């Protein structure tokens, strides 16, 4: 029995070894950049972490920043397990957010509990629809999902901007002044702030969305590793041909994995709207949660539980950068650190997954259909 436990521990160590190393090295390189600005890296990192963990309120804000990253990380990982690279989480997130606002207007007279559920479902639906497009194109026509998803990210951005400017603008719905954002979500549809339960969170806007994220991660873990659905998704991801041979539909699973991934991304949008912003603004660029989600998933080894940990790390970094900035250190150091973590993880996959990756590409069934 003791032996088995040791093995379990060994497995965990094997899995976190590389990400931890990547994080450590990135922080060291980040320190060099900080030193370059003439500041002490130790002071900077102290500011960074005290800014995000220093007191309950700050910790609450960190959890708030962690929330969407859990969703987008898990979303990326789910598709990745099916051999798909969902770079379209940005767009799916945007669609989830705008759908949420739309649902908030349509169902504005419903009572709180029901409305919240409907809002979350609407966001999920928005993301799912947006992910369905690259999914079905990959499944049925063999089109590479990465390019389609990138194109759809920008399409979503402009579509959302259009909706913000017209259909959901207060000037259209309420006849008030034209604004660069949508109407607000009805009061009863907003997610409960944790400070209402635990007053210590104080000014922080952290809300029950965080728990929705954690529950989502756990559910996805169960689906991936304990159900036939997850078995099929993972089988297709590793070897579509063998899956097909075993009676598993490649097209169905590719589409489904993409849709589920998009649904989770859309949920991220819904939770952000219902828990924090209560509206959607005109935007010039991507919200960035999708790209961070890729990093979070990779650092978390595409495992939902690992993702909980790595999302927290990225949330802490994102939250602490403001206080670091106030201390006179460019907040971009955090972006540099994140980029370097991803670079290391990309290079590290080599050591562990080389045979996998090679096979995945050379045996990529749908790609061959394209020929």
């Amino acid at each position, binding site marked *: 029995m003791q032996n088995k436990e040791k093995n379990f521990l060994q497995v965990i160590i094997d899995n976190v070894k590389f990400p931890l190393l990547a994080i450590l090295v990135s922080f060291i390189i980040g320190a060099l950049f900080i030193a370059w600005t003439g500041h002490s890296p130790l002071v900077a990192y102290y500011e960074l972490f005290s800014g995000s963990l220093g007191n309950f309120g700050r910790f609450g804000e960190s959890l708030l920043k962690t929330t969407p990253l859990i969703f987008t990380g898990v979303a990326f990982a789910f598709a990745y397990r099916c051999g798909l690279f969902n770079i379209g989480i940005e767009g799916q997130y945007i669609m989830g957010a705008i759908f949420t606002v739309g649902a908030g207007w349509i169902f504005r007279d419903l009572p709180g509990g029901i409305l919240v559920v409907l809002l979350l479902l609407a966001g999920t639906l928005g993301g799912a629809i947006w992910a369905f497009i690259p999914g079905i194109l990959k499944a049925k026509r063999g089109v590479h999902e990465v390019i389609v998803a990138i194109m759809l990210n920008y399409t979503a951005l402009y579509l959302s901007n259009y909706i913000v400017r017209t259909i959901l603008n207060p000037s259209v719905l309420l006849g008030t002044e034209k604004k660069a954002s949508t109407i607000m979500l009805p009061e009863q549809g907003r997610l409960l702030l944790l400070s209402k339960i635990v007053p210590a969170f104080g000014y922080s806007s952290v809300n029950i969305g965080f728990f929705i994220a954690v529950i989502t991660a756990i559910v996805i873990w169960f689906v991936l590793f304990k159900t036939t659905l997850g078995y099929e998704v993972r*089988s297709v991801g590793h070897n579509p041909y063998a899956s097909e041979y075993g009676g598993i539909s490649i097209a169905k699973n590719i589409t489904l994995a993409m849709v589920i991934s998009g649904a989770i991304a859309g949920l991220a949008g819904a939770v952000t709207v219902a828990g924090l912003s209560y509206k959607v603004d005109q935007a010039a660029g991507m919200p960035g949660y999708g790209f961070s989600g890729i990093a979070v998933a990779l650092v978390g080894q595409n495992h939902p539980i690992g993702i909980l940990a790595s999302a927290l790390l990225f949330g802490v970094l994102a939250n602490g950068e403001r206080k670091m900035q106030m201390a006179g250190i460019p907040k971009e150091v955090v972006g540099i650190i994140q980029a370097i973590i991803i670079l290391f993880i990309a290079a590290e996959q080599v050591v562990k997954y080389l045979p996998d990756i090679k096979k995945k590409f050379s045996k990529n069934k749908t790609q061959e259909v394209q020929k």
Partner: protein
Amino acid sequence: MAKVVEMKNITKVFPGVVANDSVNFELEKGEIHVLLGENGAGKTTLMNILYGLYEQTSGEIFVNGQLANIKDPNIAIKLGIGMVHQHFMLVEPFTVTENIILGAETSKGPHNIQLDMETASKKVKEISELYGLAVDPNAKIEDITVGMQQRVEILKTLYRGAEILILDEPTAVLTPQEIEELGMILQKLVGQGKSIILITHKLKEVMSMSDRVTVVRRGKVIETLKKENTNIDELAELMVGRKVNLKVDKADHKSGKTVLEVHGIEAMNNRGSKALKEISFEVKAGEIFAIAGVDGNGQTELVEVLTGLRKSIKGTFAVNGKDLQKMSSKKIIDSGMAHIPEDRHKRGLVLEHSLAENGCLGNHKDEPFSKHGILNYDYIHEYCRNLITEYDVRTPNERVSAKALSGGNQQKFIVARELNRHPELIIASQPTRGVDVGAIEFIHKKLVEQRDMGKAVLLVSLELDEVLALADRIGVIYDGQIVGIVSGATADEKELGIMMAGGKVNK
């Protein structure tokens, strides 16, 4: 005779495997020297070292008496060595000429920066006429036949001035007639002073094509013999390391009712042309029906249609009277069909999954493997442990990933999984490809056992010897059609060979 190549004490170590173990090999000028061995014996590795694709871990190579350090193919090419690989190294959207000159381009203009295709075409034409290798220099590779592609590969080496040619399993994709033509081409090359190394595992080719033969087994050279001084049985024994019983013991067959009925099946291949044309045959209970033919004549597509992996555009097929033509592969599995696929890495296993997870592939949605969509891992592991014991699969436990097993054990595991479904019909597609002789014997025994139990077995094989050893009846496939069905007991190789090449047998 002058020695053009001498490889001395060559050792090559890959992580975990010794592919070549102090190998000595010599090639004399103007000879055809066969390198004979089983799959995985280390023949190709040795030649890849000679061609500079791998670097030897230790040992020395002499070319024309000079010590050579062949770090990359460029050096090999300069030394006059050319290699035709088993899987052709041709860029499909390129023309014949573009492929031939690639890496040794002719150029013109200031500083020679511009490609000179005209000169290149002319030169290609000259060489092809000199050696009697007819090709169209402007045709695209994707539009020409496999035999033609092979000629392009040979031309590629000659264009670079190769004096020493290495051909890796050149006959695997050819019809018996094309093999004969290749033999003639090789004779012509030797006549012009070239020296040739031929890699093969087919004993008959050794006898028909070679001057000398070197037998390799498990990375070691066993012996080098003159063709005149040996025979097929001796070579087989040297290659495998023990007496080989090429015959499979089996009782007379008692065929029963029809299990599989195939009627007028037509299907397309991946390129969108017709791969199967009006295929009809039946397989009865208690018999092994074999499909014989040269690779690429529709075997893969036929098996895929029958297992639901490819949709037919015409015709029907039924198992025990139940029409399966429109069924999904899952439904087909459920109606009593087992399938040993031709490529275990591509189809048979999810290599990254544990053996246990591979053991339930295809049954994972059925109780007791899962219930209401939730997997029962306790049962899945127990089931897999039984497969491992019953079929003697060598593995530490059922938790290791499938890629940790040797090829033979992977194949045994697949056979175990498929036969344990208790099917009515077994489709075995090249069930012994690339496995060691021990596994071959085991798998043959199991197939005959199933037949004797009254199951129907459809065997698809490229190895005529395997077909002749196992089949009760043989259908020959050529160009997507069954061109003839003969009894296994009375079939003779020559007759099958003619049919496999699309010829008619007059009786």
